[in-house]
């Protein structure tokens, strides 16, 4: 099953490469997305304990992240055919192949039980998504692709060095190949502390670059701003989730080794910095796609902040991964529609979207309200609980700063969003033939509906999955423990039974 989840999208990518009809190629995307999701759900249904020495396999954390990516891919895949019809002037071959290859590699990353394999998968996702950023083939998209590749490759190189440091930490302690995560966590007390710490810092910087944590996010506004909305959605919720997972894996080793204080301080620091940095650049942001990119920087900050606080906040950080992915997808796709309708993405030109593209305008507005924490949408639950976790967990100052930053970001974003949605139509706007259709809006409505549903109800199996995923991040069920010195390593609890 593990192999099938990886091989199926890759085979579909190969098929998409060979197929000549662009209509058929576009149709393959929703089929592949749906089947991948079904496969994943079947795999979760027949979940088995992970063999200790397996190179590939789903644990709770990997399953949760892959579920998020698979759902998000499905939404994007249903949107893609109608988008590709609008962009019939572009060759869709590379576009479809890259999308499908990304899904396969994300499945590889989620199931990788070895830091080296995870690193290879992360590198490969960077490479296959680069052509997506260059889809528009103009000067700006070229600049964005160059930055994306160069900064991404440097980040990934640092992560490789971090992985090698981790290997040396194990080697120093007498652990030899193969270094599966499970083994590393079981024998975490053997690892050499200075090397492990250095490895974590390098991986945080490396994978943090791929996530887009400030100050390593500089590729992000360009890449998201210059690529189509659907690519932005995939990058902002898919690729970043992959990088976050890779980071959580080594964080898990840190927790098992009792170095949790050191790691948490770094994560909280990076999280706050990202949120603050994003807020500064969100003020008076005239380009609404770049605005979404900075919002993504902010939410990556929220994720690592939550994990850094630990306990309940870490669990809701994992929940926020899903919440953010769903709502970001809505926002990017709606922004893409508005961009298409106005053939511009900057403010004086784009105003009054609610009149020209009513559905996309409303979705953009609701998406904005959802992402900034309006109940009943899912991000409210996660943001509220992360703040609550920080305040009750003894991080009073950090918790208050977190809330202040959220409020500031709401105000900063609302200025841009309200003008885009409600502003008086500008006289110099361009007429384009685009208008909202069912095909370009229904996937967005579904995603927003899902985000609202998650805000009020989480199905029981999903809740259990989330809880187990949180265990592998926190090390144990007990929230807010501060541990000093080595202690028995937690074993990944993968339960066989499902009720």
């Amino acid at each position, binding site marked *: 099953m593990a192999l099938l989840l990886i091989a199926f999208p890759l085979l579909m990518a190969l098929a998409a490469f060979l197929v000549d009809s662009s209509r058929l190629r576009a149709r393959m995307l929703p089929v592949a997305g749906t089947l991948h999701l079904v496969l994943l759900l079947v795999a979760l249904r027949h979940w088995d304990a992970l063999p200790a020495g397996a190179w590939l396999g789903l644990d709770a954390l990997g399953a949760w992240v892959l579920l998020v990516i698979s759902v998000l891919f499905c939404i994007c895949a249903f949107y893609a055919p109608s988008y590709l019809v609008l962009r019939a002037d572009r060759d869709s071959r590379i576009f479809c192949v890259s999308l499908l290859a990304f899904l396969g590699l994300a499945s590889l990353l989620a199931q990788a039980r*070895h*830091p*080296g394999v995870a*690193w*290879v998968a992360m*590198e*490969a996702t960077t*490479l296959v998504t*680069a052509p997506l950023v*260059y889809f528009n083939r103009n*000067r*700006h998209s*070229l*600049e*964005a*692709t*160059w*930055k994306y*590749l*160069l900064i991404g*490759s*440097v980040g*990934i*190189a640092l992560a*490789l*060095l971090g*992985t*090698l*440091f981790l*290997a*040396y930490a194990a*080697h*120093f302690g007498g652990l*030899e*190949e*193969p*270094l599966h995560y499970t083994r590393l966590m079981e024998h975490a007390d053997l690892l*050499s502390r*200075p*090397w492990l710490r*250095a490895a974590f810092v390098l991986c945080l910087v490396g994978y943090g670059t791929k996530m887009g944590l400030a100050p390593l996010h500089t590729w992000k*506004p*360009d890449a998201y*701003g*210059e690529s189509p909305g659907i690519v932005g959605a995939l990058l902002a919720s898919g690729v970043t989730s992959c990088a976050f997972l890779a980071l959580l894996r080594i964080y898990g080793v840190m927790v098992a080794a009792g170095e949790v204080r050191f790691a948490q301080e770094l994560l909280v620091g990076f999280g706050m910095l990202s949120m603050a940095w994003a807020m500064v*650049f969100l003020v008076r*942001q005239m380009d609404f796609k*770049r605005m979404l990119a900075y919002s993504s920087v902010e939410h990556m900050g929220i994720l690592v902040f939550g994990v850094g606080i630990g306990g309940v906040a870490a669990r809701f950080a994992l929940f926020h991964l899903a919440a953010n992915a769903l709502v970001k997808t809505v926002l990017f796709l709606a922004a893409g529609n508005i961009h298409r309708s106005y053939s511009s993405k900057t403010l004086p030109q784009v105003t009054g979207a609610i009149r020209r593209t009513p559905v996309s305008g409303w979705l953009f507005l609701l998406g904005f309200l959802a992402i900034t924490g309006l109940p009943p949408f899912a991000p409210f639950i996660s943001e509220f609980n992360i703040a609550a976790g920080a305040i009750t967990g003894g991080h009073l100052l950090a918790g208050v700063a977190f809330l202040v930053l959220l409020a500031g970001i709401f105000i900063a974003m609302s200025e841009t969003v309200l003008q885009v949605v409600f502003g008086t139509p500008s006289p110099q706007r361009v007429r384009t033939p685009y208008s909202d259709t069912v095909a370009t809006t229904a996937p967005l409505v579904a995603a927003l509906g899902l985000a609202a549903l998650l805000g009020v109800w989480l199905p029981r199996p999903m809740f259990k999955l989330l809880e187990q995923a949180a265990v592998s991040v926190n090390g144990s069920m007990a929230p807010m423990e501060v541990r000093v010195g080595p202690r028995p390593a937690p074993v990944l609890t993968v339960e066989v039974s499902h009720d």
Partner: protein
Amino acid sequence: MSPDLLIALTILSNFVLVATSRVNKAIQIAVVQGILLGLIPLAMGLGRHPHILLMVAATIAVKGWLIPFLLRRALREVHIPREVDPYVGYTVSLMLCALGTGLSLILAHMLPLKGGTKEILLVPAALSTLFTGFLMLVSRRKALTQVVGYLILENGIYLFGLLLVEDMPLLVETGILLDLFVGVFVMGIVINHIRTAFDSTDTRHLAELRD
């Protein structure tokens, strides 16, 4: 030849690299460094493992021939002025490189090495080379020189990998080779596109997106 000598020569080549003003020469030095790196495992006496010999051959072929070939071809076709036109001057770069090397020695001193390790210079050399690569990446304007910087950064990782290669060959070898080859290959493609779009590989053209 003793491995220490080769490692010292590698560090020396870093200094030459940051002080050079010609793209052509920078590529040449990268070639020299690539070959030096290829020879270090042999000098360390690792030549008895066939898989390490394979890695050495691949390293020398890719770093010493293939990538320089791609870079030189791009250089020939673009007709860019051969002078590197850096954000940070050469003297300052040289001083920063020296500072970085010094810091690498201090940092490496703080990381314990497993008892019986003979090549104690590998870690500081790795960190110093990594730093040089970074310096090139952020202080140079031409896309080509930035790729050379990225190459040097990778060399630093390779140097560190040598510390582990005998004990964890699988992780180190696949990681290093894959990273290097694919990364530069794709950058080669992007450089090609930049060339056709701007008729020059100056990344100053790539500075229109900003807030």
